[in-house]
């Protein structure tokens, strides 16, 4: 199979994220280097810096704000590219620090119910598979509910992950009512005294009102059994997504009260810079990032490492 899988040695999370991000931030960091050897921070340079931030999906508003901060401190002064990158990285880390929170499973909830939602193809099922393996390895009893009853073979996909992790997967035939499945899964998981129940859902675009209603119904139905469930509602964001992420968070949060984000596919050339803008706008916790296809490639989100990776710094 892939070269990556043949490689037995596992790199640390920081190396993985950094190698992912730095390959990707080559352009950003390289761009900054190209702008400076050592020169005066003037309006034109600031504009170019702002552009480079935009090219990492930070969005026009956040990029403008970061550059304005830099200008405030360093305008008309001699600066090196290293200084500029450090300054941006520190600023970005400061924005991300408050949202970098790992997902905590509350032992008092039996089970702790985690609902996973997101648009199509963002990586929900894969993320659930990785979470299940990690929690299982921590000695928790994990149950999965194959709530994507729409997409062809989505159930089978989760079942394979269930087998790999050695955890039970509750499933019904394709086309079943996902809310009913969620309800039954919850009662089964409660009976079994599971620590965690993770409910998968079908991918849905946030502008499809009827599908968003269906998602809200799943939450309603769960609450009938356990009023404070789901204890966590995760929105899985594709790391390649652009400014549409704002709409995704806005609408999903409104419909199902999203409690945290997981950002996937950061091992590619995407920069995931939109996370910075999201942190500013919504202040939702970012629980984890996906940096590869292996189970341990789902890693806690670390603000400083992410910010420095984005800026191509060690």
């Amino acid at each position, binding site marked *: *199979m*892939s*070269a*990556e899988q043949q490689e037995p040695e596992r790199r640390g999370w920081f190396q993985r994220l950094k190698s992912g991000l730095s*390959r*990707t931030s080559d*352009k950003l960091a390289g761009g900054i280097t190209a702008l400076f050897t050592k020169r005066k921070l003037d309006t034109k340079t600031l504009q170019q810096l702002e*552009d*480079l931030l*935009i*090219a*990492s*999906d930070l*969005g*026009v*508003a956040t990029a403008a704000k970061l550059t304005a901060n830099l200008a405030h401190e360093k305008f008309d002064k001699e600066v090196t590219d290293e200084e500029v990158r450090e300054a941006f990285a520190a600023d970005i880390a400061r924005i991300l620090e408050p949202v970098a929170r790992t997902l905590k499973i509350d032992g008092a909830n039996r089970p702790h119910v985690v609902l996973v939602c997101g*648009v*199509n*193809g*963002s*990586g929900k099922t*894969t993320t659930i*598979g990785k979470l299940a393996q990690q929690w299982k390895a921590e000695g928790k009893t994990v149950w999965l509910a194959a709530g994507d009853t*729409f*997409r*062809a*073979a*989505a159930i*089978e*996909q989760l*079942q*394979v*992950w269930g087998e790999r992790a050695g955890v039970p997967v509750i499933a019904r035939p*394709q086309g079943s009512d996902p809310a009913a499945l969620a309800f039954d899964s919850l009662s089964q998981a409660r009976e079994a005294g599971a620590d965690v129940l993770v409910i998968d859902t079908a991918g849905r*675009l*946030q*502008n*499809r009102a009827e599908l968003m209603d269906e998602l809200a119904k799943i939450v309603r139905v769960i609450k009938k059994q356990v009023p404070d469930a789901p204890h966590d509602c995760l929105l899985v964001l*594709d790391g*390649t*997504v*652009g*400014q*549409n*992420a*704002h*709409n995704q968070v806005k609408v999903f949060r409104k419909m199902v009260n999203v409690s945290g984000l997981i950002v*996937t*596919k950061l*091992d*590619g*050339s*995407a*920069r995931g*810079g*939109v996370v910075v803008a999201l942190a500013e706008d919504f202040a939702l916790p970012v629980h984890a990032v996906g940096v590869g*296809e292996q189970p341990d490639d789902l890693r806690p989100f670390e603000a400083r490492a992410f910010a420095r990776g984005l800026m191509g710094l060690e």
Partner: protein
Amino acid sequence: MFESLSDRLGEVFDRLKRRGALKEGDVAAAMREVRIALLEADVALDVVKGFIDKVTERAIGEEVTRSVTPGQQVIKIVHDNLIEMLGSDSAWIELNAVPPVPILMVGLQGGGKTTSTAKIAARLTNRDKKKVLMASLDVTRPAAREQLRVLGEQTGVATLPMAQGETALSIAKRAMAAGRLQGYDVVMLDTAGRVSIDQGLMDEVRQIRDAVNPAETLLVADAMTGQDAVTTARNFHDRIGLTGIVLTRMDGDARGGAALSMRAVTGVPIKAVGTGEKIDALEDFHPERVAGRILGMGDVVGLVEKAAETIEIEEAERLAAKMQKGQFDLDDMLSQLQQVAKMGGLGGLMGMLPGIGKLKKQMDGAGVDDKSIKRQAAIIQSMTKKERKNPKLLNASRKRRVAGGSGTTPQEINRLLKQHMEMGRMMKQMGKMGGMKGLGALLGGGMPPPREMPGGPGQNAQLPLPGSGGGFPGLPGLGRPGGFPRFPTKR
């Protein structure tokens, strides 16, 4: 947050006079807004820069035609150039090769390759009457092959039987052999998702390409992709050589700037767009729609063109003058009704506006439709000239006559008179508030979200339609005088 390019350009050009050629300064100011609009739409920075340079060059010195404002003129130029860049030629899968024609589907994880493979296969089968075999080369993602098999069953397209322990390359070879032996016209190869910077995985897909020599190599990409679109597209194109792009999730509310970025860096056409979860939700690529979407303004250009075509400026200006003085009589109302009808009625008008789909449904639900416009016109046409000038003349007996003449009832006539009165009052107010600005505040400024719409079905739903101030910077004639009359509900 960015709302609409036309709003912003409206502001930029507010201080300009309406006539004359576009000057360098004006264009530069406008291009700053265009630049932000494109970036907010996720068009890649490099592409934005190149685009702006080109458009600036073309826009300077452009004569502003009499019927539009400078802002509209710039939008038109930007829009036309966007379409040109997106590629006006619509292209479909090229099957000019010896059967079985191999088609290779590549892209990132979760882009929609498998679904798109099935959609294209179904279209080739049903519309182009080809015999298609689908094969999944995805041995990485759990149940990916199962997914394609199920989709094949649903669409009645054959899939290559699965075997354990094969590599992607050997499956590809087996698929081509099966295609030859069993007389298939097309063999579609659905590869595993891969990031474009993974050398090993890119080599693998290159080997597959070399082994099967595909007639088409299609990059399947998500319309929601951000700035990375350009990197991904470039990497795939450099390493494997693309012949086309399939853009998925165009039914979402992303502005779709990725389309422009990928087209710009690869130069290959966008061959299809995915617009839903159903198997038949695959459409041809319409550059003009995507252009409007990237600019965040629906098909405003179409609206502007249509307005310019159908609305007589002199008539509109005469109306505007009358309204300022508060002399809005029933004849004027009739003239407005007729202009709306001319522009393709409410349906045609609303369809061209951005973000109106829901409102349109609501209007249908409330019974606001073109028929009621016709009925209203009929009522006014059944009145004498004197009555039209002075509606107060209409006593019970005259109303009965008008009702008989127009095939309506006195109640409907009362409703129309009430609306006319309200419109008159509103316009007087606007005159006081200073014309256009006031109108914008009243009408165009805030199109309320459908839920907050006053009046449910059966009531006299008053629909504020976008007037000049908000939606369109001084749409000729249409918006300026008074927007639209408040449309009545059907009983």
